[in-house]
C-alpha cells in the first residue's frame, strides 16, 4: 500500500524544520522512576558468553527513550536498566532478538529501535546509499568519458 504525497504534506515536510521546534516542545514523558530494587540482569552479564554477546549487540540497537540520544546499553537511566534486565532474561529464555524488537516496537513505537525497521516509511533510507552512489557514479563516469576525447 503506497501512499502518494499530496502537496500540502510535502509543503509541511519542507516546513518541518521550522515547525518542528514548536511541535517538539512537548517533552517525552519520563517513564516512572521505580522505587523497586534494581532488576536482576540490569548490570549482570549472562553466564553464557555467546548469549551475552547476542544480548549486548541487541541492546546497542535499542534507544533509551528517557535519555538524550543514548542506547540502553549506554545509559544509567532506570528505564534503560529495566529494559536491559528484561532483554537479558528473554535472551536467556531463548527468545530471538528480532522477536524482542517487535515486542518493544509494539509497546513503545518505532522510536525505540535504532535499527530502521521494514516500515515502508523507511524504505527511502535504505535506498539512499544505492541511489546516491549510482547518481554520483554516473555523473563522474560520463564526465570521465567525455573528457577523454580531445
Amino acid at each position, binding site marked *: 500500500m503506497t501512499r502518494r504525497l499530496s502537496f500540502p504534506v510535502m509543503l509541511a515536510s519542507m516546513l518541518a524544520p521550522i515547525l518542528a521546534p514548536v511541535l517538539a516542545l512537548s517533552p517525552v514523558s519520563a517513564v516512572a522512576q521505580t522505587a523497586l530494587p534494581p532488576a536482576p540482569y540490569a548490570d549482570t552479564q549472562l553466564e553464557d558468553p555467546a548469549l551475552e554477546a547476542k544480548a549486548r549487540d541487541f541492546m546497542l540497537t535499542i534507544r533509551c527513550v528517557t535519555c538524550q540520544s543514548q542506547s540502553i546499553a*549506554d545509559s544509567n537511566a532506570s528505564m534503560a536498566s529495566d529494559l536491559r534486565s528484561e532483554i537479558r532474561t528473554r535472551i536467556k529464555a531463548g527468545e530471538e532478538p528480532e522477536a524482542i524488537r517487535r515486542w518493544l516496537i509494539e509497546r513503545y513505537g518505532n522510536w525505540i529501535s535504532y535499527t530502521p525497521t521494514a516500515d515502508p516509511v*523507511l524504505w527511502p533510507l535504505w535506498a539512499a*546509499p544505492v541511489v546516491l552512489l549510482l547518481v554520483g557514479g554516473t555523473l563522474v563516469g560520463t564526465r570521465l568519458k567525455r573528457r577523454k576525447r580531445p
Partner: protein
Amino acid sequence: MIAETGLAALWLAAALAALQLVAAWAGIARAETDLVRLVRPVAVTQGLLTGFAFLMLMLLFLRSDMSVALVAQNSHSMKPWLYKFAGTWGNHEGSMLLWVMVMGLAGMGIALFERSLARDTHIATLGAQALISLGFYAFLLFASNPFARLDPAAADGQGLNPLLQDPGLAFHPPTLYLGYVGLSVAFSFAVGALVTRQVDAAFARAMRPWVLGAWVMLTLGITAGSYWAYYELGWGGWWFWDPVENASLMPWLAATALLHSVSVLATRDGLRAWTVMLAVVAFSMSMVGTFLVRSGILTSVHAFAVDPRRGSFILILLALYIGGALALFALRVGAVREGNRFEAVSREAMLVINNLLLSVLLGLVLIGTLYPLLTEALGTKVSVGPPYFNSVAGPIALGLMVVLAIGPVTRWRRDTLRSVARRVAVPALVAVAVLATVLAWAGGWIGILPLLGLVAAALVGVASLAPLWGRNLRRTPLFTYGMVLAHLGCAVSLAGMASESAFSVEKLVAARPGDVIRTAGWTVRFTSVQPVAGPNWTAMEGRFDVSQGTGKVQEIRPQARFFAEPPTNTTESALLTRWNGQLYVVLGDSLDDGRWQLRIWWKPFVTLIWAGGGLIGLGGVLSIIGRWGRGWRRLRRRGQAESYA
C-alpha cells in the same frame, strides 16, 4: 560597566561590518578606489573589536558578575576558575559570541595575511565575509545578547552543567568553532571568486591554506570531542552517531572533499565549478550543524543550550546565505571556464572518486540525521541510529580507504593500470597477510566490518608511506610529509576503531571491597570506597589495585560524583593506558547488600583512534607550513609582496 563596554564593542563591530560591505561593494561595482582602501583596515578593526567583546564576557565570567543574566544562569561563584573561564562558551550566547569573534578574527586574518589572491577577489572576499558576519551580529544583538543585565542581581549563579565541567570544555568547543567558522572563509573566497569570475589555479592556491586550517581544527575538535565523550559518559563508547556528532562530521566530510578538490584545481586547474560548489556546501554544513545544535529540534546528548526561536533565526540565515550563494553560483557557473580535462587513470580521477565517496557519505549522514524529522512530520516517530549509519557508512568508508591507498601513488595527468598495480602490490600483500593472521588468531569470527577495517588499515598504513619510497627524504617537500602523515593517521585511527569493536572485553560485576575480579588478563582488586570532596562536588571514590599478568600493581580511582549546583550525578571513569590498550573502570550504584556495581572494560588499541586523529591534524599543520612557506617564497621572488601593500 564591563558588560556595557562589551556590548558597545559589538555594536561598533557590527557597524564596521556594514561599512566593510558597502566599501567592498563600491570598490567592485563602482571602482571607487577611495572607499576600497577602507576595506582592509575596517576588517582588522572589526576583528579586534569582536576579540575585545569576547574578552569582556570572559572577564564577567571570571569575576562571577551575577548582575549579568548569562553569568547568573550558567556560572557559580564556587566553580574552579578553569570552568569559569571555559564556561564563557559553555552556553548559547557565549558560544555564539565565540562564533562571531572567530569570524571577526578570520576576516582580520584575510585582510592581513592573504597576499596571493587577485586584488579584486580579495576585496570581494572581504565583502562576502562582512555580509555573513552581519547576519550573525544581528542574531547575537537581537536574539541572544550575552551582555544582558539581570536586575536585581542574583545572589549566586545556577551553575554549569556538570557534564561540561571537564578540561575538555576548554579545548573542544573553541577548536570546533575555529573549524566551523574557518569554513566561512572558504565560503567567502568562493563567493568572492564568483563575483570577480576568477576561479583558477591561483585562486585555489590562495584558498588552500585556509581550507587546510579549518579542516585541521575540525579534525582536532572532533577527535577531542570523541575522547571526551568516551571517558565522561562512562559507558566506553567513543562515537554515538548522535545528531550533534553528525553535525560536526558533515562539515568535516565536506572540508575533506574540498581539501582534495582544491588540490586538483591548484595543481591541474580542473574541477573549477565543483570546488566552488564544495566550498559553499562545506560552510552550509557548518550552519546546518549550528542550527541542529542550537535549535534542539533533534534529541541529542548535546542538548544543554537550546531554544527553538533561535533555531528559526539560524534557519533564516541559513536559507539567505546558502540560497544567495547557490543563486550566485547558478548565475556565474556559465562564466567559469571548464577546467583541464583528465584521464580515467590519473591522480585527478582518483581524487574525483575520493570526492564522490566523501559526498555520498556526507549525503547519507545528512539524510540519516534529518530523516526522523521528516517522518515525524508525516506522523511516524522513528529513530535512525548507529546500526543504520554503521551499515551504510562502513562499506563506503572502506571503499574510500582503498582509493586512499591507490590515489597518492598514481601520477597526475595520465598513468597506466599496470604501473599503479605494481606500486600497490606490497601494501596489498601486507593486507592479505593481516587478513590471514586475523582469521587464524582472532579465535572466532569478529564481524565483517571490523575484519575489513583491520585489513584496510594495514593496506593504507603501508601504502600511505609509498609516496616517500625512492625519494630523497631531505628534499621531499614538507607538504608531502603532511599528506603521508595524515593518510597514515587514517590507517592508525581505523585500526583503533576496528580493534576496539572486535576485541573489547566487557565485565559487569557487583563486588564488595576486598573482592578480586579477573578479566582479559587483568587482576582488579577492589580495595575500598572512600567519600571525597572537590571544590563544588562530593563523590564516592573507589580504590582499585590493578595489574596486568604479573606486571606491576597500580592504583586507579574511579568516582561517582554528585554536584549540588545544579543537582546532578556524574561518573568519572578511571582509565589506565598501556601501549596496547586501555583498562576502563567505572564505579556504579551501590546495592543494598554493601556491594557496588562495577563496569570494567579492556579495550585493546583503543587509543589509536585518537592518536590517528592527532596524526591527521599534525599532517594538516605540516601541509599548511609547507604550502604557506612555498607561497611566500614564490611571492618574494616575484616582488609582489611590496607592490600589494
